[in-house]
């Protein structure tokens, strides 16, 4: 494979945005038949580099060469014409349309008459040959996130993409789905595609990549063969320093009961039972981790606790006060912070600036509010403090937050939620998409809050993260708590069994 020619090459790419140089003379090449991982901390410039390759942005300098020819890309259409396709982290599918309809959406041919059965057959054959199980006739809204991702991949293959880019594809997948995705990627490489794959998880890189290119601060640190490297040295390349050992969980004193759920039942968005009698308690200074395959009621649990979803039966107490079916505002005022799964859209408002996002929960209270007025100077000071204390990298405070990198977004969100000195923090997939350094920061912040005496409800699909941070682990399966274990006693296999629905007898909540 070493002698394979480069299928795509980017030379000395430079791209600046107001206030940052996102790519600084970056060179990058991928060969036919390889899986090439692109690694780097949040804000290193990975998405920018790939957006240039897909024609979304134009580079300030540098050139792109595909199959030996220098090309100019003006739009994603141009890119597809040159065989370059990208699967974004936020899917671009139309939910009421069927899979096959989504696949042909935006294609020039066929121009007039659609022969749907024919197209469905082609789509089915294509997904079959790459092991992408998905029914072409089914509507997209009925699909799980993992299945939707498969549709995106099929879409690109249907358009004849030979160079396939996936931006953090595993961040939204269950471990099982991740394994299947890797098999698909292998098969694509085997068929002579070049697969470029962005991730933050080093073990995935070691599992699936052939070569790895590392970006740091907008520059390329280098490209290495997988067989010549190891996770520690990759981490060093990414961060530019030794990674300190992970913070360890400390046993602090436990205080009063902060959160108590008694046999809570709630419905999902589709009107089906999502929580079927969940009971749990968390004390001050305690971190309870909720493990489970996503889609087993975790999202609904977080929303019930934060007042965003009505409770059908059962009770919710916060610091001993009955807050069942109270408004989100009352629950915020009771000292509950929430780091939601949907950061951009729920936790943060994409088109508003950093400052206006910082005051999202504080705007009702002095000093930000003065009577009916907003004190913009106070808001500015507050934002400057948070940005400094939590090291959020922003060029200026009016920058719309949709332009921040994933890591910086999460930092900003956590900064706002933690700075309110909450009694309870509900954190949902808080490190999804974050690099090692940012993950460490988030974990440290959560542990500091715990040490300060906050109760923390952590929802994650990463078992290692949960075991590492939690005092106790509760496993959810089909809307029920299967069991609660002290994490010191919990073993992976046991949790795995509970996650699969094999209930343990006689556990204490």
């Amino acid at each position, binding site marked *: 494979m070493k002698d394979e020619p480069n299928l795509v090459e980017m030379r000395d790419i430079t791209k600046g945005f107001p206030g940052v140089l996102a790519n600084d003379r970056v060179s990058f090449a991928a060969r036919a038949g390889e899986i090439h991982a692109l690694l780097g901390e949040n804000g290193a410039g990975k998405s920018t580099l790939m957006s240039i390759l897909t024609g979304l942005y134009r580079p300030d300098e540098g050139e792109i060469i595909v199959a*030996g020819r220098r090309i100019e890309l003006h739009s994603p259409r141009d890119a597809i014409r040159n065989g370059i396709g990208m699967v974004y982290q936020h899917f671009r599918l139309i939910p009421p349309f069927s899979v096959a309809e989504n696949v042909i959406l935006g294609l020039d041919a066929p121009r007039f008459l659609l022969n749907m059965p024919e197209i469905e057959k082609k789509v089915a054959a294509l997904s079959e040959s790459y092991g992408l199980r998905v029914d072409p006739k089914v509507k997209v809204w009925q699909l799980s996130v993992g299945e939707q991702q498969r549709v995106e991949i099929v879409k690109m293959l249907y358009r004849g993409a030979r160079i396939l880019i996936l931006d953090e594809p595993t961040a939204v997948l269950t471990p099982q789905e991740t394994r299947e995705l890797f098999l698909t990627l292998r098969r694509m490489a085997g068929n002579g595609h070049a697969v470029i794959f962005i991730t933050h998880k080093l073990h995935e890189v070691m599992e699936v990549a052939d070569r790895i290119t590392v970006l740091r601060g907008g520059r390329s640190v280098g490209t290495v063969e997988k067989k010549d490297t190891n996770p520690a040295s990759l981490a060093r390349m990414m961060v530019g320093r030794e990674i300190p050992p992970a913070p360890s969980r400390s046993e602090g004193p436990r205080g009063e009961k902060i959160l108590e759920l008694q046999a809570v039942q709630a419905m999902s968005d589709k009107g089906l039972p999502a929580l079927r009698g969940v009971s749990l308690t968390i004390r001050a200074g305690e971190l309870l981790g909720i493990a489970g395959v996503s889609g087993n009621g975790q999202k609904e649990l977080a929303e019930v606790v934060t*007042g*965003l979803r009505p409770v059908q039966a059962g009770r919710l107490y916060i610091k001993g006060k009955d807050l069942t079916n109270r*408004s*989100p505002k009352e629950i*915020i005022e009771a000292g509950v912070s929430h780091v939601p799964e949907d950061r951009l859209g729920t936790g943060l408002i994409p088109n508003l600036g950093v400052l*206006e996002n910082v005051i999202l929960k504080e*705007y009702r209270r002095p000093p930000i509010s003065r009577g009916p*007025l907003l004190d913009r100077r106070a808001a500015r000071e507050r934002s400057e403090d948070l940005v400094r204390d939590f090291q959020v990298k922003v060029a200026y405070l009016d920058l719309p937050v949709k*332009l921040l990198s994933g890591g910086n977004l999460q930092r900003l969100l956590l900064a706002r939620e933690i700075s309110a000195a909450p009694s309870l923090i509900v954190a949902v997939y808080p490190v999804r998409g974050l690099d090692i350094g940012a993950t460490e920061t988030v974990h440290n912040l959560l542990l500091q809050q715990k040490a300060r005496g906050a109760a923390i409800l952590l929802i994650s699909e990463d078992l290692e993260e949960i075991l590492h941070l939690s005092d106790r682990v509760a496993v959810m399966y089909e809307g029920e708590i299967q069991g609660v274990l002290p994490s010191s006693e919990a073993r992976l296999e046991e949790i795995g069994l509970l996650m699969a629905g094999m209930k343990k007898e006689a556990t204490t909540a």
Partner: protein
Amino acid sequence: MNKQSQLTLTLEKRLAPSRWISFLVPTISVAMALLFGAIFLLMTGHDPLKVYEIMAEGAFGSKYGLSETVVKSIPLMLTGLGVSIAFKMLLWNIGAEGQLYMGAFAASWVALSFPDASPGFLLSAMFLAGFLGGALWGLLPALPRAFLGVNEVITSLMLNYVAILWVDYLVYGPWKDPKGFNFPLTAPFTPSADLPTFFGTRIHLGLVVALAAAAILNVVLWRTRWGYEIRVIGESPAAARYAGMNIARNILLVMFLSGGLAGLAGMTEVAGITHRLQHGISPGYGYSAIIIAWLSKLSPGAVVLVSFLLGALLVGGYSIQSSGLPAATVSMLQGAILFFVLGSEILTKYRLVLVRRGERRAN
């Protein structure tokens, strides 16, 4: 390396709409609409330059014309501001026309019922009634929207017909002036119900009210807690809920205010211009308000400016009627403007770039 390149124009997606483009776009759209109108005029055998000259002359050429342009811009400003504030929260209030009529009705009721009240009291009561009339009418579609999720586009539109026909019923029926030669109008209001006018023209106190409303709205939107809530809800209802904002209450409040502003337009028309309630008090101000809201990108300051321009278009339209052209030309131009605004919207999201498209071979 065989170097050969040519320059081409392409569209590139903008990261954030630039400030001057939001000023440029309406200007371009108006120019395009005038061009479109010119073609139409040519085809119907008129000299477009001549027609536009008559229009400009009529709207700006004399003290009278200019003052009439201002007079027309007053109800446009008030309804335009009302529509803008609702649109800001993604509430598609198409009902400004009906809200204007209900404001006019309520104010007229006050004027006709208390003819002997002192001018200060009477006008204050009429302002209050006008505002409330429009506001309550605006609240009607807001209630099902806030509590049942019923789309307000259809309901607010339908209520226009109800309001217009209600006023017609009154002026053709119970409120008809017995001394009015059977015209569909009420008896004239008592002079105490006349709005003060300025400079010996028909420009009335409504101008001050409209300008003050624009200034206040600007402050409300950008400097107050409530304005912040409106902007957050408009941008992302999920985030607003997450932050504990009461969306239903804000829907009611904003539609109340939106309708109230349109109601004020109705009040200032009857108290400042017609001095009675009559059939057809508005030539569609409430619909033009939608165009104004779009053209001004929901910014109160821009609403004032755009209303003035549309007012000029209306006044210019009256003056070309004398040259044998139907006044409908003006409606057509308005429609064309809206069409081009929406079309040129693309320029605020993309930008034209000059690129070198080359056939250069690597290596």
